[in-house]
């Protein structure tokens, strides 16, 4: 038996290949396709607008990606198990509010606020996971319920008013400061972006290298087969939802830091943006397949589009239309790819 099967260009001696079929073969990896689209978008925008490629604009795009990117990573984890998480947006807000409660209302030190946000996220994720795994509520409904519960709770706890972090020095630096910029002044990448990449690296590692990740894919691929392998499927599923929740907590910190406040009315709609990024990145909504890198590229594509269209002064309304069209195109490309396979 030969060693490793080539994944990109299978060597099929004797079978002549046209340039077209080679192109399709390259497209067989949605991630490549998404990456290529990203490059095309970048080149396209920079050709029509000289301002687009400026460092400050690039950094603005990255900064804009950070929150959606982190939420999309959380959504990716759940979607790979064959589930869906509609609560990532309002959970983000809820964790921000909880950070506000700990830091501003109770006046505790910064690390406790950070811990509170992440722990709240993980706990809420665990709740969703319990609804799904133990109570067998379909993920769509369980997390739809969570989405509303958390939105309501955020408003109740905050008394519908924003909570400001003016009394916590350094809170705004979580997202807006730049550790990298201090070391390399030419590269003032904000901490928010750094955190996004750290979260992405960690999630990628968990998915690719750990038991938790392996079970996430296996659950999405054939849950019953996993259960009959003697695996505690309920427990692992709850763990994934909890992990996703914890990551939403990081998203909550990022947005609160960027706005220097917890805005309790915010959050609804973020879940759809996150899911859009996941889908553009080639993760299958039916579970079992997906990558964090793809999601990251998906989130970048969305941010580049929004930014580029704004630089071209396309009206906001049209930006939304374009985003919708991109989602449909991306999934269509994925479908073509699978049909061929």
């Amino acid at each position, binding site marked *: 038996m030969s060693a490793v*099967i080539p994944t990109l260009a299978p060597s099929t001696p004797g079978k002549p290949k046209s340039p077209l079929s080679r192109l399709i073969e390259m497209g067989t990896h949605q991630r490549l396709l998404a990456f290529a689209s990203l490059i095309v978008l970048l080149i396209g925008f920079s050709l029509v607008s000289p301002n687009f490629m400026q460092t400050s604009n690039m950094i603005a795009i990255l900064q804009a990606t950070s929150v959606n990117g982190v939420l999309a990573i959380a959504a990716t984890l759940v979607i790979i198990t064959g589930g869906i998480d509609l609560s990532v947006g309002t959970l983000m807000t809820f964790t921000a509010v909880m950070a506000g409660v700990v830091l501003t209302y109770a006046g505790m030190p910064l690390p406790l606020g950070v811990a509170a946000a992440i722990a709240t996220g993980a706990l809420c994720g665990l709740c969703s996971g319990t609804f799904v795994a133990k109570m067998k509520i379909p993920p769509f409904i369980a997390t739809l319920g969570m989405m509303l519960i958390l939105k309501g709770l955020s408003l109740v706890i905050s008394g519908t008013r924003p909570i400001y972090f003016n009394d916590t020095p350094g809170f705004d630096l979580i997202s807006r400061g730049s550790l990298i910029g201090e070391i390399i002044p030419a590269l003032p990448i904000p901490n928010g972006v750094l955190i996004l990449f750290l979260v992405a690296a960690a999630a990628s590692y968990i998915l690719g290298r750990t*038991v938790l990740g*392996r079970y996430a894919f296996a659950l999405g*691929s054939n849950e019953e087969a*996993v259960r*009959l392998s*003697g*695996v505690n499927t309920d427990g692992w599923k709850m763990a994934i939802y909890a992990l996703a929740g914890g990551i939403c907590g990081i998203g909550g910190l990022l947005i609160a830091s960027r706005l220097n406040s917890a805005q309790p009315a915010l959050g609804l709609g973020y879940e759809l943006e996150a899911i859009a990024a996941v889908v553009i990145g080639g993760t299958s909504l039916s579970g*079992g397949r997906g990558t964090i890198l793809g999601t990251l590229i998906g989130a970048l594509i969305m941010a580049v589009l929004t930014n580029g269209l704004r630089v071209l002064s396309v009206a906001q309304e049209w930006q939304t239309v374009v985003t919708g069209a991109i989602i449909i195109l991306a999934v269509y490309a994925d479908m073509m790819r699978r049909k061929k396979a």
Partner: protein
Amino acid sequence: MTLLVKMHGIEKWFPGVHSLKSVQFDLAVGEVHALMGENGAGKSTLMKVLSGIYKRDGGEVWIRGELAEPAGPREAQDLGIGIIHQELSLMNDLTVAQNVFIGREPRGLFGRLDERALNQQTAEIFATMNLKLDPKAIVGTLTIAKQQMIEIAKALSFRSRVLIMDEPTAALNDAEIAELFGIIRQLKAEGVGIIYISHKMDEIKRIADRVTVMRDGEYVDTVQASETPLSRIISMMVGREVRESPLQVPDTSGNEVALDVRQLNRGTEIRDVSFSVRKGEILGFAGLMGAGRTEVARAIFGADPLESGEIRVHGKVRSIKSPNDAVAAGIGYLSEDRKHFGLATGMDVRANISLASLDTFTNGAGVLDEKVMKDVAVGYISQLGIRTPSDRQEVRFLSGGNQQKVVIAKWLLRDCDILIFDEPTRGIDIGAKSEIYKLLEELAGQGRAIIVISSELPEVMRLSHRIGVMCEGRLTGILPGGAGTTQEDIMQLATQRDAGVSLAGEK
């Protein structure tokens, strides 16, 4: 001889696999032509080329004397080619009738579905097949055997001139096989040509007119079934002699009892089932389809609930509420339905083999050691002869029999004290079958308790140290293994519909 189908010089490539190497095949009117070969020989692939599912990379296909280029399954159907796939492809949530007529539903005004006509036409097809089945039943609730019959009914409903059957009897019992053969003879008389794929050698003598053998994607030869001894066909398939070692029943009466189940009950499916297995013993379970063997196995394994009953493992009562509990107690169960319950088909061979034993490949932080996993997977690939380009190949691209071997590897790796094998050799070729028998005997020899459920009586008799027989949810008797027990003895118990449990062979 009028030829319905003639294929010549057929080539097919998959990434890293040359599946068909200049293969030829033909089929005459009113003929049953068996296609034989080991797992992964290319039988299913050749048939998928003929039925328009795969595009061939070379060669020519003539259908009724005309050069044909079936562009897809639909076109192939229009050319009169029907196929019953190796893997069932029914929609579980639809009714039987809806499945049979999917895409061709009888319609009323304004495209309204005519459910009455649908059910009636389905019932008519079933009647010609002598099949008692409610057209309104939901497919997912039926046994695999019933589902197989539905696939056959569906293919028949197309009035195909050529009917391809890819291992149609893998999940059928003897009575059902006899019925299927009746249908095949009837079709033959009507001039339909049938291409028949099976790993059950005895069927070839019973039903086939000619036999074509393939090996490693190559055409070997075509012979007359009546004139060729089976042993010759086997050596053509395998490329060597396959020697069957006879059963030797060891004396295990002094060994510790590994698994002891008492008074298991659930509705009418499991009624008062009690038995025990000792270490080093192979307990076979025979019975007709639907006798409740799988139900008992799944209940012991915690996959389905029990209403009452006690399970003792190594003398201790264990409460087994889930497969997770069962594996923790040292019980493994290899399901009869690999596609739904055995494999994550979208994942690769390596991941599937390690799926039940991931904890042994991790460090404290839950990080997987891919290198060890790879070594283990590669080890099983060579031990069981799994035909795959590498351990990273997705399981869905393997041939049916090779998928089954992956499931077996998964449980061998899990290394349970008590192993329940439900139809372990379903779809496995004759050479690999004897390898698996040897393996089961080795496992027993190492002191494991083995339970084997099989619908093939010769298999049960070949393997079992004791033979439990079930009928309608009851264990009607346990017979001693070895030459003393005949097929008739087993069949008598398997059809013993009333109470009166005999425990003749119970030690």
